[in-house]
């Protein structure tokens, strides 16, 4: 009983915070601190709740059912998977809230802080409800709370017109996604006779294949819209930058994962048989999202848009794990399916941590420089050393380099793909080869992208005056970023432990109830593949690396040539005064990659030259070069749809004559039609 009460206290804390923030809205300061502290208490409570659930409960933690209306039951069910997501949400929310207290100070006297607090709390509460609801209608309500609250957070900085547009796009896209989800639930309702997940689970067994496949496609598109898979990703790069940074961190780190959560919930918990092609589709979607996401990120020079594209990339990597898990399940290899799902879950956790870290550091850079354009930065490491250090850790982690957490989840994904390559079916083998190739390429390109971001933002000399006014961010900023950076390292080093924990969580899902689990006990804290074919020990690597590093530094610095003098001089410039325009820019850095992938990215160059003399076209007075990336999705996907809808609606318009008699006729015809039907 107590655990249920704990859960409701968790929700109540957020509701309390939301209402309180509205009550205190007259005073900016009180409203801000109230919402910040309530969110911190709430998220701490959530973390304790989730950890407690892991420690003391094996599979199902609790189920609560209370009937309000015939179809809408207030039914909650917390199992290991939900607890895991509650943990992620609370963990990221904790640091975003600490960060948000300081960040929201920008908005004093400008916007209503009470409203910010209200929607912030509602947003987190909505996400918590999404991962715990087990009734279709309740779920949809929670989903809408989450979507609408985040919409208001996106348009919070409403003086910028771009933000309003971005919010509008987000609102449309998220509801298009919701439409697919509603359709999926309605089909389930038809067969199950109830919106309750348990009833649906029973009903799905008897469902014909056609409808199962329809549900799969609808869910993939619907939840994929939230998760940001390509090509339904377009809201993501515009909505994330528009929101305040701590909100972007929550949206990118956690909210898009709720889409993945529901995919896991539906595919792995409700269905009991999975055709092979589902997994292949998910794998292909994942591979393309990962590769295209990172390619588009490379073309960006807006710091937050770039990070948003990286979210798409990482969702792709998560889907690679998910897809291979589905394939392994349909091939009957349950152990590998569990392992691949654990890889996906681990990447969900890791991506949440380092993406939140990156968004928070980006926010602290933006709050100092007031621009998101990377080309205007440069040399920030001297003005904001701590932020730079944390951003570096985030970059190393997201690029999948050891010893940080990103590497280990990518390692697990790679291992499951390798196991897929080992399969005997040549078709499946090739699919997995392509997936592994795209993952390898994605990893390499992500590395390029983060060298570009870190180099252009923090290194070399300032490229504009605004950088020189930047100061190190406040204590609360540094505290939350530092904590997340530490977590990146800890999760990396504790990867062996997480491997086992996440395997247990994935194994607790309904679909794996018949699986005989075997765990490889972790030696030296190492991650192990299920058949023991590969091991990697993070703590040992870290210790050996640290030892070698210390030895090398000690040896080189203190044993060889102790009297060496280090002179600080100018950068060698061949005699030409270096200025900030000679440094490589973010656009220049990724230019070669853009050229190489020009078939996919479709870059365009426009020259505008003004001549000194219109007769003698030799001497340029000024020259403007515009580099653009052609928006393929706009032209080939969204515009045709838009055109089609416009044509259809103009056709439909013709029945609207404005004459009231005609309308009465329509009503009459409809009535007769319905009478016939009945």
């Amino acid at each position, binding site marked *: 009983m107590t655990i249920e009460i704990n859960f409701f206290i968790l929700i109540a804390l957020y509701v309390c915070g939301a209402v309180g923030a509205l009550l205190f809205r007259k005073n900016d300061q009180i409203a801000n601190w109230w919402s910040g502290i309530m969110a911190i208490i709430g998220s701490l409570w959530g973390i304790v709740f989730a950890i407690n659930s892991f420690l003391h409960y094996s599979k199902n933690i609790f189920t609560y059912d209370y009937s309000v209306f015939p179809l809408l039951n207030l039914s909650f069910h917390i199992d290991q998977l939900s607890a895991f997501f509650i943990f992620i949400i609370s963990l990221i929310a904790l640091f975003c809230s600490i960060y948000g207290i300081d960040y929201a100070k920008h908005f004093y006297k400008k916007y209503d802080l009470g409203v910010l607090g209200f929607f912030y709390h509602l947003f987190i509460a909505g996400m918590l409800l999404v991962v715990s609801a087990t009734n279709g209608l309740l779920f949809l309500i929670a989903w809408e709370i989450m979507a609408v609250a985040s919409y208001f957070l996106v348009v919070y900085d409403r003086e910028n017109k771009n933000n309003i547009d971005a919010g509008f796009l987000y609102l449309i896209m998220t509801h298009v996604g919701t439409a697919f989800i509603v359709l999926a639930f309605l089909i389930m309702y038809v067969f199950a006779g109830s919106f309750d997940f348990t009833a649906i689970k029973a009903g799905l067994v008897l469902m014909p294949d056609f409808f199962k496949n329809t549900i799969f496609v609808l869910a993939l598109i619907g939840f994929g819209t939230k998760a940001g898979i390509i090509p339904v990703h377009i809201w993501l790069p515009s909505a994330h930058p528009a929101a305040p940074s701590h909100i972007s961190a929550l949206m990118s780190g956690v909210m898009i994962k709720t889409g993945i959560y529901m995919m896991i919930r539906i595919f792995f918990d409700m269905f009991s048989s999975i055709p092979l092609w589902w997994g292949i589709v998910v794998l292909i979607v994942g591979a393309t999202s990962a590769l295209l996401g990172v390619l588009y990120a490379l073309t960006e020079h807006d710091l937050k848009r770039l990070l948003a594209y990286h979210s798409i990339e990482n969702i792709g990597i998560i889907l690679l794990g998910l897809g291979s898990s589905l394939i392994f399940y349909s091939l009957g290899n349950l152990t590998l399916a569990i392992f691949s799902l654990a890889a996906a879950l681990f990447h969900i956790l890791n991506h949440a941590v380092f993406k939140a870290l990156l968004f928070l550091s980006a926010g602290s850079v933006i709050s100092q420089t007031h621009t998101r354009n990377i080309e205007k930065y440069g040399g920030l490491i001297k003005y904001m050393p701590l932020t730079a250090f944390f951003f570096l850790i985030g970059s190393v982690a997201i690029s999948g380099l050891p010893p940080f957490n990103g590497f280990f989840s990518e390692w697990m994904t790679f291992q499951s793909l390798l196991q897929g390559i080992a399969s005997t079916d040549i078709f499946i083998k090739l699919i997995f*080869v392509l997936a592994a190739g795209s993952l390898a390429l994605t990893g390499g390109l992500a590395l390029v992208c983060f060298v570009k971001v870190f180099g252009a933002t923090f290194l070399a000399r300032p490229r504009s005056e605004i950088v020189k006014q930047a100061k190190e961010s406040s204590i609360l900023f540094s505290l939350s970023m530092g904590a997340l950076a530490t977590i990146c390292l800890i999760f990396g080093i504790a990867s062996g432990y997480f491997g086992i924990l996440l395997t247990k969580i994935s194994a607790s899902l309904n679909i794996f109830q018949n699986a005989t689990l075997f765990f490889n006990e972790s030696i030296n804290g190492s991650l192990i593949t299920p058949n023991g074919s590969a091991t990697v020990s993070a703590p040992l690597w870290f210790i050996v690396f640290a030892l070698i590093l210390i030895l090398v530094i000690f040896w080189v610095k203190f044993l060889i040539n102790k009297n060496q003098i*280090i002179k600080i001089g100018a950068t060698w410039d061949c005699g030409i005064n270096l200025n900030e325009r000679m440094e490589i820019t973010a656009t220049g850095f990724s230019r070669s990659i853009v050229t190489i992938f020009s078939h996919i990215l479709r870059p365009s160059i426009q020259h505008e030259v003004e001549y000194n003399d219109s007769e003698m076209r030799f001497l340029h007075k000024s020259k403007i070069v515009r580099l653009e990336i052609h928006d393929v999705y706009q032209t080939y996907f969204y515009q045709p749809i838009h055109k089609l809808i416009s044509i259809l609606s103009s056709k439909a318009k013709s029945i609207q004559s404005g004459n009231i008699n005609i309308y009465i006729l329509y009503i009459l015809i409809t009535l007769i039609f319905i009478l016939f039907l009945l």
Partner: protein
Amino acid sequence: MTMFFWALQLIFVPLVSPFFIGVVRKIKAKLQNRQGASIFQVYRDLWKMMRKDEVISSDASWVFRQAPFIIFAVTIISGLSIPIFASFLVNSLTGDLLMVVYTLALGTFFLALAGMDTGSAFGGFGSSREMTISALAEGGFILSFFVVALIAGTTNLFTIVETNIFLTAKFFLPITLAFIGFFIVLLAETGRFPFDNPATHLELTMVHEAMILEYSGKRLALIEWAAANKFFIFLILGANIFFPVGIAQTADFKAIFIGIVVLFFKAFILCAIIGLIESVMAKFRFFRLPDLLITSFILSAIAISLI
């Protein structure tokens, strides 16, 4: 006893690596009808640089200052994680092939950052080119290793080498294809022809050299040494993972001696091939390099489907 072998493995790569850079240079010199520098020249260069003073740019941050140590340490730990002369030293903790690939990528990451740090025009484009090449090489690198990993049924490099089943007729073709794929990656990652000219002084053709133009003294020595280590690590990988002949399977000195001699022999052959390629081939235009790297990827993919 085992401790002794591990200690030997620890110092083996940094100790021997400059030698093979010297060997390649010597082979190239011979093919140019020159006598060329001594094969131990690189040791002398390194030791001299270690004892010189340094000039560090005033624009440089701690990234520039600490990067050489990180890059060097990365190559040392990678040297520990690969089978050099003995496969019985099973390193199941860091000896995973993906771990080695990504550990080396960590070095590239910091090298590229260090190149950008001083704000010199050379460093920036050097980093850009290096990252472009290494990003595209990643696919072929990992897939060519996957070929042997699939045959051996493990991704642990030591176990792969211990399995030692490659010279059967069944696996001859896939292994050869994967090796060609790997060899292209080797040329790309270690900055050799046709990707990069290790002896260039020309900004237009620089890749690796452009990033390290700002270094001097000890830090330059460390970076050059790390580059030599990386080259040697790739030689070892090519020699041992694909052709694990002669490697010591038992822990006695005779087997290890043979292992080292055979390794030197194999590495020498690889060096000869590299030297030959550098002498008869021109550097490719930068935007033709992706074709070559994609070839490496495709060769490995074909090799996988042949297994």
